[in-house]
């Protein structure tokens, strides 16, 4: 085994060590160490991505001296390393972009603990992406939940505490349902690792044994992870959590925490239960309906709110609806689209959060939608980033979300029937609604009403972060075809 193959496991352990060390550091050094951890993780993951791209195969990394059904293991392929690299880049950029602001908002003597939570989020994200074991996934789900609740409550105002409570209650229900699902799956297959479960489930499906427990398991796991990642009827915690936390926290929550859960769900569908079994169970139809409802309801709610942060939060609900709609199509192509949108959405949404925080500050610390009018003349870079992100989410051609919509339509046509009609109708309505709220806000940024206030010079970290986000989004948009092809090749060795 070459050294590069060790990197995913080493990243996880290194992040853990740094999280522990950060807990005893002083404020500034804690911030620097956290930044360093993010950079190192990103570099190592990109190297692992290069390696997997070169070999084109996925490999299994044993965590210990014992092989598959006995010990824990990680599984590393193009898809895993690629997702981890993009999401880690997003984390790094969000961290840099809101670095100064979160330094001001968070109690100085406890800033090191905030660094620990960022580290733990990154740790659990990587563990969720790489793990090949359901129980390990549960343990890291809980770490992720705890760390994310810490991130939400970081401001320690009454509202953020309430947001934290609502987040925790919903997420703990979700974890419990997920664990119950895993336990039932264990009792009918006798395994916890994904690969042996896949074989056992295929056997069960062939013999027709234990059909009902299998059904219930898939339902419990889907609902559990759906609750945790803000699937439509369980999205009540989202607005409060996203709009009352610091900018870093909301960017991390929307880009990393919920995306890790969705990646795990895709992994369970494709690799653990297996697509043929999933198709025969019919659970995907329910997810399809939830996704479609989320697309519409999230957008309608976003139309009515008055603050920019809330608008972005509700638009997250709608975008996550897209992901679940794609999963709900129940085909491999649908999963692929879901995965693509996961990356595109993470990159775009974090950029929106960071740039809107910057614009709010330039407009005198307000959060209201009407107050950001003319923000382009106060902080041009942030306004440009915001409008690019908005245009992307609306579905401007040549950008990444357009690819999602296009591929989603194509996949739905291939599936045909009622799915096709529903998908196309929902896509149209949702795009129109998106146009309604995003474009009106983005246009108002450029309105010059004489009194635009003084121009604010963002510090170089913010500029670096926004430039990085713009580059990432443009790359995902313009180079969509090669990136998509790479992911597709990764999907071939995923299952």
């Amino acid at each position, binding site marked *: 085994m070459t050294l590069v193959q060790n990197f995913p496991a080493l990243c996880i352990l290194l992040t853990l060590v740094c999280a522990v060390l950060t807990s005893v550091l002083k404020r500034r050094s804690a911030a620097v160490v956290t930044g360093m951890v993010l950079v190192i993780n990103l570099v190592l993951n990109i190297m692992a991505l290069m390696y997997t791209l070169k070999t084109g195969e996925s490999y299994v990394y044993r965590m210990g001296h014992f092989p598959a059904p006995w010990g824990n293991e990680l599984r590393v392929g193009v898809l895993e390393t690629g997702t981890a690299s993009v999401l880690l880049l997003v984390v790094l950029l969000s961290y840099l972009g809101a670095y100064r602001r979160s330094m001001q908002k968070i109690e100085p003597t406890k800033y090191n603990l905030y660094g620990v939570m960022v580290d733990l989020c990154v740790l659990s994200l990587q563990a969720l992406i790489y793990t090949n074991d359901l129980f390990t996934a549960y343990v890291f789900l809980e770490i992720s939940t705890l760390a994310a609740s810490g991130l939400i409550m970081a401001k320690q105002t009454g509202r953020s505490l*309430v947001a934290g409570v609502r987040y*925790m209650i919903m997420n*703990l*229900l979700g974890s419990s349902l997920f664990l*119950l699902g895993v*336990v039932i799956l264990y009792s009918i297959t006798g395994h916890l690792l994904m690969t042996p479960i896949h074989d056992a489930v295929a056997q069960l499906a062939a013999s027709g044994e234990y059909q009902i427990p299998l059904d219930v398991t898939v339902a419990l796991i889907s609902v559990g992870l759906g609750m945790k990642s803000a699937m439509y009827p369980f999205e009540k915690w989202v607005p409060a959590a996203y*709009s009352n936390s610091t900018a870093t926290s909301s960017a991390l929550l929307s880009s990393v925490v919920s995306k890790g859960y969705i990646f795990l769900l895709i992994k369970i569908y494709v690799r653990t239960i297996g697509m043929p079994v999933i198709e025969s169970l019919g659970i995907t139809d329910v997810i399809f309906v939830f996704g479609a409802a989320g697309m519409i309801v999230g957008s309608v709610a976003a139309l009515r709110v008055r603050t920019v942060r809330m608008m972005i939060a509700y638009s997250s609900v709608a975008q996550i609806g897209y992901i679940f709609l794609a999963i709900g199509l129940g085909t491999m192509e649908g999963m692929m689209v879901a995965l693509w949108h996961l990356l595109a959405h993470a990159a775009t949404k974090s950029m929106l959060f960071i740039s809107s925080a910057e614009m709010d500050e330039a407009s005198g610390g307000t959060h209201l939608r009407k107050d950001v009018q003319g923000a382009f003349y106060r902080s041009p870079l942030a306004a440009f980033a915001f409008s690019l992100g908005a245009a992307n989410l609306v579905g401007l051609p040549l950008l990444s979300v357009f690819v999602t919509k296009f591929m989603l339509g194509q996949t739905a046509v291939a599936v045909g029937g009622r799915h096709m009609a529903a998908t196309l109708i929902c896509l149209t309505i949702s795009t129109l609604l998106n146009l309604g709220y995003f474009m009106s806000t983005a246009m108002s940024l450029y309105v010059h009403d004489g009194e635009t206030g003084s121009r604010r010079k963002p510090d170089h970290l913010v500029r670096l972060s926004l430039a990085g986000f713009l580059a990432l989004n443009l790359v995902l948009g313009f180079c969509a075809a090669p990136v998509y092809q790479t992911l597709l090749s990764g999907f071939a060795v995923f299952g």
Partner: protein
Amino acid sequence: MFSKWLMNYEETAAVILFCIGFSMMLFNRNLIKKIIGMDMMDSSIYLFLASQGYIEGHKAPIVTGGVQSTEAYINPIPSGLVLTGIVVAVSVSALMMALSIRLYHRYHTLDLDKIVALTGREEA
């Protein structure tokens, strides 16, 4: 069906406990009661899990007298998983308790609906 429930009595009990915990979380507005419900849910899952490893007449999996055969011991995996799970449940309830303390100090009530009403509308 009744005979099946009687046969799987431990799982049946676990499932009933799970639903009691679940409904406590949904019906109660009091934070502490919600936490209790959550703990019950977790514990019932561990009961369910532990019952998966039990084999009639076998002993706890600690090697005694050099006997190493599956005839003698129960399945050790669920026991280990329960051990891991308990710690997770403890951590989570510690966090929820801490949150309740903070909320109580600010709002002087544990009624979640009231607390939400006291924070006011989001966009004010």
